[in-house]
């Protein structure tokens, strides 16, 4: 629900994470991953890799011809009775949806899960126009009830435990709720059924748009998406322009990849294919369908050869599930609607590096996300590219010390290009470390190195390998040092001989 957040302070956010979060997150992601692995193995690991490549190629092909496919889509949606609206910005998208609602005197909206509407902050906007908005996806319903925001792309309430949800239902809905998933969802469903029937408008996002037939595809497990699309008289879908795919063959590939990679399902419980409106108002279903195509910075991302692959994303959430960082911090610390590795690359491109410049650094570059991505987004490459932009743009992306850091790095880089300076530096560190040395460890170092030693000691600096090497190959390699040493030795021998001679004489 955050429309336009201020600067995102990832590090600061990670410093006050509620203690229950990592455990709650890990138990959910572990389950997702185990199911996903089983599904991939069943499909056949080798075939799966081929399918990922096909998925990647067809998504990239579509992005490279986005203008053509969007025009085909528009024509086909309109000939099926839908209306297509283009929104360049988040504000334009909000205005379009609000105006539709106001024109139709909408009082109550039911919503299916949608990242795009989170991105544009739609709920808040509609609510301030006096329209009530109810999230009907179970996770979103819980999050809305808690006044919270989603923390995972496919599991919005994944940061909450069953016990937390039961307590929330008791406090906000006044029902005695046991901490049991089955019963909690039954309580929510009973509440929601009535709301679907009285709502004036349904809103959803969209998983895919099939250009060839103008079909909107919703992939859900609760059936709430289908209810939002068909029960109220007006239906609006807000979908990012990158969600388009060419045809039904492409859809078959995507529907094989998405559910397996997200939750290990061969197919979700509901896959709704929405192809226009009902011609006769006597039939059930919406009589007015608006497709709002959202740009909001996406066409800008398309311009860059590497960065554009961010838009291949089909929002399966697997990169969050496997990410060691996400698993220990949860989704909220990423400061906006997208979290985990995809958030770390998408948010800075949608909000700008001035606001989200810390996010591309929030990765160990372990690469697990690249390997699990169903459409092979080169996430590490994109992170590196954004890191470079963040530091080069001098926006203070990673804090006020950025200029100092850059100058320091440039000086160090030059020193590392000189074997002599490197050698001196290594020797100097060996001496400088002495006051901090405890049994071969450096347990406490002054800032900024305490950022390392606060968590674990640093092993002592040692530079004895080259000495060992020279000693062992003594004679074969005569450096100035060995030469100097042999001169000293010779002088020493001469002095002893002289002393001996002198003693003998006296």
């Amino acid at each position, binding site marked *: 629900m955050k429309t336009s957040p201020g600067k995102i302070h990832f590090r600061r956010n990670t410093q006050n994470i509620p203690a229950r979060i990592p455990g709650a997150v890990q138990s959910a992601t572990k389950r997702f991953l185990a199911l996903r692995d089983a599904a991939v193995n069943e499909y056949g690991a080798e075939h799966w890799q081929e399918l990922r490549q096909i998925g990647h190629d067809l998504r990239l092909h579509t992005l490279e011809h986005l203008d053509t496919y969007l025009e085909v889509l528009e024509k086909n949606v309109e000939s099926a009775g839908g209306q297509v609206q283009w929104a360049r910005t988040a504000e334009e998208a909000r205005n379009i949806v609000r105006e539709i609602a106001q024109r139709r005197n909408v009082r109550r909206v039911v919503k299916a899960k949608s990242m795009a509407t989170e991105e544009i902050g739609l709920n808040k906007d509609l609510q301030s126009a006096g329209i009530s908005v109810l999230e009907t996806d179970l996770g979103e319903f819980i999050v809305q009830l808690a006044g919270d925001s989603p923390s995972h792309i496919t599991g919005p309430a994944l940061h909450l435990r069953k016990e937390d949800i039961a307590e929330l239902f008791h406090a906000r809905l006044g029902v005695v709720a046991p901490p049991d998933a089955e019963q909690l969802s039954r309580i929510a469903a009973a509440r929601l059924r009535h709301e679907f029937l009285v709502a004036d408008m349904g809103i959803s996002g969209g998983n895919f748009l099939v250009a060839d037939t103008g079909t909107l595809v919703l992939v859900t497990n609760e059936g709430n998406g289908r209810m939002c699309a068909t029960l109220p008289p007006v239906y609006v879908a807000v979908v990012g322009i990158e969600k388009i795919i060419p045809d039904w063959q492409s859809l078959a590939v995507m529907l094989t990849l998405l559910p397996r990679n997200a939750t290990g399902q061969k197919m979700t419980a509901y896959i709704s294919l929405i192809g226009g409106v009902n011609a006769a108002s006597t039939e059930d279903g919406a009589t007015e369908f608006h497709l709002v195509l959202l740009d909001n910075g996406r066409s800008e991302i398309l311009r860059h050869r590497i960065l554009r692959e961010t838009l291949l994303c089909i929002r399966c959430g697997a990169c969050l599930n496997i990410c060691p960082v996400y698993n220990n911090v949860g989704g909220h610390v990423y400061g906006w609607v997208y979290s985990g590795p995809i958030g770390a690359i998408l948010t800075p491109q949608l909000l700008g590096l001035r606001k989200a410049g810390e996010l591309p650094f929030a990765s160990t570059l372990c690469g697990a996300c690249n390997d699990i991505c169903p459409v092979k987004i080169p996430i590490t490459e994109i992170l590196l590219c954004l890191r470079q932009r963040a530091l080069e743009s001098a926006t203070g992306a990673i804090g006020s010390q950025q200029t100092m850091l850059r100058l320091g790095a440039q000086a160090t880089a030059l020193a590392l290009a000189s074997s002599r300076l490197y050698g001196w530096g290594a020797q100097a560190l060996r001496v400088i470390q002495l006051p901090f040395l405890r049994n071969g460890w450096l347990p406490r170092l002054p800032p900024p190195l305490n950022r390392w030693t606060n*968590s674990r000691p640093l092993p002592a600096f040692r530079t004895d390998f080259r000495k060992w090497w020279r000693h062992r190959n003594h004679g074969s390699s005569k450096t100035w040092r060995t030469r100097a040493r042999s001169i000293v030795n010779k002088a020493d021998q001469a002095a002893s001989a002289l002393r001996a001679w002198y003693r003998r004489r006296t």
Partner: protein
Amino acid sequence: MTIRVQLFNTCLGENFYPGVLRDMVAVLERLGVECRMPEGQTCCGQPFYNSGLQQCARPPARHWLRVFGGTDGYIVAPSASCVGFVRRRYEGLFPEGSPEHTAVQEAAARTYEFTEFLTRVLQVTEVGAWFPHRVTYHTSCHLLREFGLRNEPKQLLRGVGGLELVPLTDEETCCGFGGSFSVIFPEVSKQIMEKKIQAIDNSGAEVVVAAETGCLMNIHGGLHKAQAPVRAMHLIQVLAQEDRGQRQGNGGR
């Protein structure tokens, strides 16, 4: 024909784990490889590149090329991340068609990570080591995901006499080091590291082995801080352990 290896020390190896480098020489020589150490080597420049300062990686890269470019034989390092950086990124740092670009391609193509060199070039899985301890193995991200070395390090460990290899929970999960990540976000790095330490402690192993000095530094320090009774060793250090007579009466390896 004698196989020759140019030792690519790496800055972490040289400044924190000289013992690993000495053992690398010992293992390679035991396998009949002739070792050389190009004088004047420094750091490959990876820390800059990965921190978004890609321009700063160029001077160290150029220096690396000066040091290793004119050598012969293989170039071998005890670290997959440094080798990965040289092999995958160096050519992109110099304009195509420039002499440096060509030279770096030549040198990078004969640069190997130690485990990779042993198992793929020398095709060795047994080096005649003896280490009668319970050992668990932490997979480093670069070794696994950049080089696809999932089983090879374990094969080498299984080839060590007396060694018992026990599984590590989430062995393929990052240890939280991540280079500059560990100092930009120390709190998160710590949390990831502590989970790894916990898993190592629970494995029941006496020794945890990693084949990467970066991970080793993080895990080694973490174990020390937690006062866990587990030793951290580089794979090379285990492979360098020789039979010192303990084998007698044990009926061989």
